[in-house]
């Protein structure tokens, strides 16, 4: 009996079109996700002289990545799983990876938009200018950092099934990451916390982005931070996929 299964490209096109439409229709919550890092970049204008422009930009991008990974991706997955949206997709001739791949590509596009917005606001408001290579490397580092927070979101949605619990957990983790991350990085919480924060998911992403924005300063610490970022991503993603239930 002759049976043709749909081409992966056709399936991905259909899924991406639907997922981008969903993102566009949710642009109010998208604006809120983008607003926080932009406010950080604007309010940290005073730090440009003392800490440097890359520090401010890296801080804004890191916080934006946490917002996208924890608040955007995780909650949309938890909600659609709870409503049976994935179940309906999975009874079609669709490989499970294409469903997730489409969702992740939409989040990566959001990360790109957020990064460009931060570069633009940093330049226009804080008068921060970087070299072309700095912008390019910063852009790539933002995607790498985004992968870490998306994988952390995957871990949360893998371990927790109830969408309300996912929502409250992501908000709690978001708050802890931002408060402990920012204050710890400033050294407000003591040297021990500062050291711990530097090797936490917040600290390593922040360092990778901050150093990537000025490629000439790349050093072994940045390399270790990049390896730690990749390591965290692999561990979180593996556990998140291992424990994830589609319905």
């Amino acid at each position, binding site marked *: 009996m002759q049976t043709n*299964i749909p081409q992966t490209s*056709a399936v991905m*096109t*259909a899924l991406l079109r*639907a997922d981008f439409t*969903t993102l566009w229709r949710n642009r109010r919550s998208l604006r809120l996700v983008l607003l926080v890092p932009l406010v950080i970049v604007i309010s940290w204008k005073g730090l440009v002289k003392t800490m440097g422009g890359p520090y401010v930009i890296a801080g804004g991008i890191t916080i934006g990545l946490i917002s996208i990974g924890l608040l955007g991706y995780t909650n949309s997955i938890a909600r659609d799983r709870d409503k*049976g*949206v994935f179940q309906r997709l999975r*009874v079609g*001739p669709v490989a499970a990876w294409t469903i997730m791949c489409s969702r992740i590509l939409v989040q990566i596009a959001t990360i790109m938009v957020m990064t460009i917005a931060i570069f633009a606001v940093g330049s226009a408001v804080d008068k921060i200018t970087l070299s072309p290579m700095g912008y390019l490397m910063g852009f790539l580092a933002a995607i790498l950092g985004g992968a870490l927070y998306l994988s952390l979101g995957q871990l949360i949605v893998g371990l927790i099934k109830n969408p309300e619990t996912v929502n409250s957990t992501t908000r709690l983790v978001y708050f802890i990451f931002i408060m402990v991350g920012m204050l710890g990085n400033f050294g407000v919480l003591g040297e021990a916390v500062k050291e711990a924060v530097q090797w936490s998911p917040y600290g390593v992403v922040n360092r990778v982005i901050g150093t990537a924005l000025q490629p000439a300063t790349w050093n072994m610490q940045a390399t270790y931070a990049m390896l730690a970022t990749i390591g965290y991503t692999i561990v979180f993603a593996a556990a998140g996929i291992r424990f994830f239930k589609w319905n």
Partner: protein
Amino acid sequence: MSNQQRAILEVDQLSVSYGSFQAVKGVSFAVQPGEIFGLLGPNGAGKTSTLSAIEGLVRPNGGQITVAGFSILEQPLYAKANMGVQLQSTSFQAELNVSEIIRLFSGIYGKELSPAEVEEKLVEINLQESATKRYGQLSGGQQQRVSLVISTIHDPQLVLLDEPTTGLDPQSRRQLWDRIEGIKAKGHAVLLTTHSMEEAEAVCDRIAIIDHGRVIAIDTPEALIAAHRNDPDVISVSRKGKITLEDVFIGLTGRAVRS
């Protein structure tokens, strides 16, 4: 060629377990092209687990399922390409409107539709006025129509309908029955689950009654009634002296209410 070889769906010795609980215990049946086959059973009898295994949502721990000759375990995408599914509680992305949902699923099933073709589909289910409405804004009957059009968008050889008329008014139910018979008229097969004995009698060519994870009876509605007409358990539950399919069902599965 035997009937078994020509079946569009073959379920052979299917077993499904959730931890230590065995929901389906060696269920076997086959659905032929052009046949409407009903799967009946009380709550928790194993209907949904059987259907979920056929749909590829649950991995069986024993037995075989083939759709149009493709094993759901070994060639799931090929098996799924030959079936359309209407789930019991279907949900689509809340932000998408009806047209966008139809376009999404036409792409997923490899039948990319132009805007004009989407419009045709909407006219077919009398929802052209609701093209820009979100799925959640539709009435129950309208949602079922959208769900059915999506399950048949690729003209599958097998359509699985899980309690398709639950919550519908009589008009919508009759309209859905007509659509189900339209699928049969094309020579395609339908497997449906229902709690309505009236529905089973009205539309099903054959039915299987499933209880405690096993098929306890399988035949045409008329043959089942005839075979159990003199069964004391069936007679004891009959009303007004006439044996109905519901009497046979309750006689075979018991009066106790299941959770």
